[in-house]
């Protein structure tokens, strides 16, 4: 994994600031047309196949060494006991959960596996000013706790509300979210643990382009079983996790208000300023301060004219 030290962060910040001064566009502003790394990996989730067995949750728990669940992964009552939110969501103890929706349009309950969607242009990554996030060439959006300062901007930035915060230590802030099994599997081109655990092949792993082809093939050959839409093909600028559904996605519990433009396009101008604020301003104000002092000490010197320019 690419590690970013605090020092290299400041180096990167300074470069961005200099680029800003010299009139170059900074990195976030260039990302507009990025449609993903070639051959990057993805997962296709087929809601018509998922039966809510939660094998994927158990596999994730084991692979990532997460804390033991409150009740066994065979417990089906979790689908009903969803608390005030009304649906299940990943948290600091579970990188992935399966949520149930009862739609009047389907004659059986619908199950939807939820985890980080590993956006092609992740807004968590863009929002993070210490560069704790990396989008790897294989498609994973991974997080490096060693540089995280715990500001939680990524939690606000994510259009799918995925990053969760582990509160047990104020000194070692830690965001908890799906890493696409990058360390143990994806970097060796192996599918994540959840995919291998699914008994119904509801999860298919492969190159994003191939999975889009398979998804279209399923829609074309079974038009009465799927709605004609692949969630994640364009949502949030495109994601590495893609979904097929038998009912309109809003009916299956998906947020269909997520814009198809990458989120960063809305905030990039602001975000481009953030490193500049952090790196130029101290120098700028120190300069003002020095110049002001100089003016006071040598009110009649030639330097005064220079500072007036």
């Amino acid at each position, binding site marked *: 994994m690419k590690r970013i030290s605090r020092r290299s962060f400041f180096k990167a910040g300074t470069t961005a600031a200099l680029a800003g001064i010299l009139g170059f566009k900074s990195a976030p502003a260039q990302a507009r047309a990025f449609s993903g790394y070639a051959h990057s990996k*993805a997962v*296709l989730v087929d809601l018509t*196949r998922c*039966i809510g*067995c939660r094998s994927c949750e*158990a*596999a994730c*728990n*084991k692979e990532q060494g997460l804390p*033991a*669940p409150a*009740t*066994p*992964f*065979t*417990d089906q009552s979790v689908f009903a006991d969803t608390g005030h939110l009304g649906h299940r969501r990943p948290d600091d103890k579970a990188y992935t959960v399966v949520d149930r929706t009862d739609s009047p349009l389907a004659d*059986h309950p619908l199950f939807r596996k939820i985890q980080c969607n590993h956006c092609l242009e992740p807004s968590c990554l863009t929002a993070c000013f210490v560069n704790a996030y990396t989008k790897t060439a294989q498609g994973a959006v991974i997080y490096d706790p060693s540089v995280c300062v715990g500001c939680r901007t990524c939690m606000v930035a994510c259009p799918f509300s995925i990053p969760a915060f582990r509160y047990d230590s104020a000194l070692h802030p830690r965001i908890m979210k799906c890493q696409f099994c990058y360390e143990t599997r994806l970097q060796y081109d192996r*599918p994540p643990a959840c*995919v*291998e655990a699914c*008994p*119904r*092949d509801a999860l*298919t*792993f*492969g*190159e*994003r*382009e*191939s*999975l889009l*082809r*398979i998804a279209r*093939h*399923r829609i074309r*050959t*079974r038009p009465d079983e799927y709605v004609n839409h692949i969630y994640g093909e364009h949502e949030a600028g495109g994601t590495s996790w893609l979904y097929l559904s038998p009912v309109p996605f809003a009916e299956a519990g998906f947020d269909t208000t997520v814009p198809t433009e990458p989120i960063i396009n809305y905030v990039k101008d602001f975000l481009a300023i953030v490193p500049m604020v952090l790196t130029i301003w101290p120098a700028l104000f120190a300069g003002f301060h020095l110049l002001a002092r100089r003016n006071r000490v040598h009110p009649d010197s030639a330097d005064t004219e220079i500072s007036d320019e």
Partner: protein
Amino acid sequence: MKYFLFAAMAISIGAIPAGGAPPPEDEPPRLIVLDSLAHFYEPVRFDHQLHIDYADCAECHHHTTASPATDPRCTICHTTATAGASVACRNCHGTKRPSGEDAAKPRPSHRYHIDIVSLAGAYHINCLDCHQAVDAGPIECIDCHAFTEEGKKFFHLTDSLLGSPKNQGADQ
């Protein structure tokens, strides 16, 4: 270690006819023990004879048993049915998960067959969907699967929960 694993796989892959003397070559097996995927679960005893009584061969074996395919999506191409070299599910549905790479293969048969499910997928999709459609046969995981010790650990199952009335089917 590698050799052992390979041997174990070779033994366990696919259907092993069980229950008394094996029927003659051309007779379908009466009972099939499905243990190719056993790891978290004990092997599943599948009553093949019962299904022969209820369903047409082609319902599960598509067109490989020489009875014509029933799915209209298949009959577009598979107009005639000749018996396949083998009718075992595992011949087409491998233990390896399907992946996007299947769609990228240049073989002509992959023009259409770009999306073949794995053995586990074939069992669980075929069995469950049919049981649901005809409203008969096991539906719940534990109706077919008794957990191994490994499986109990994987699902964080405690003995107290396994002993509850709802889960007793697991130990039958």
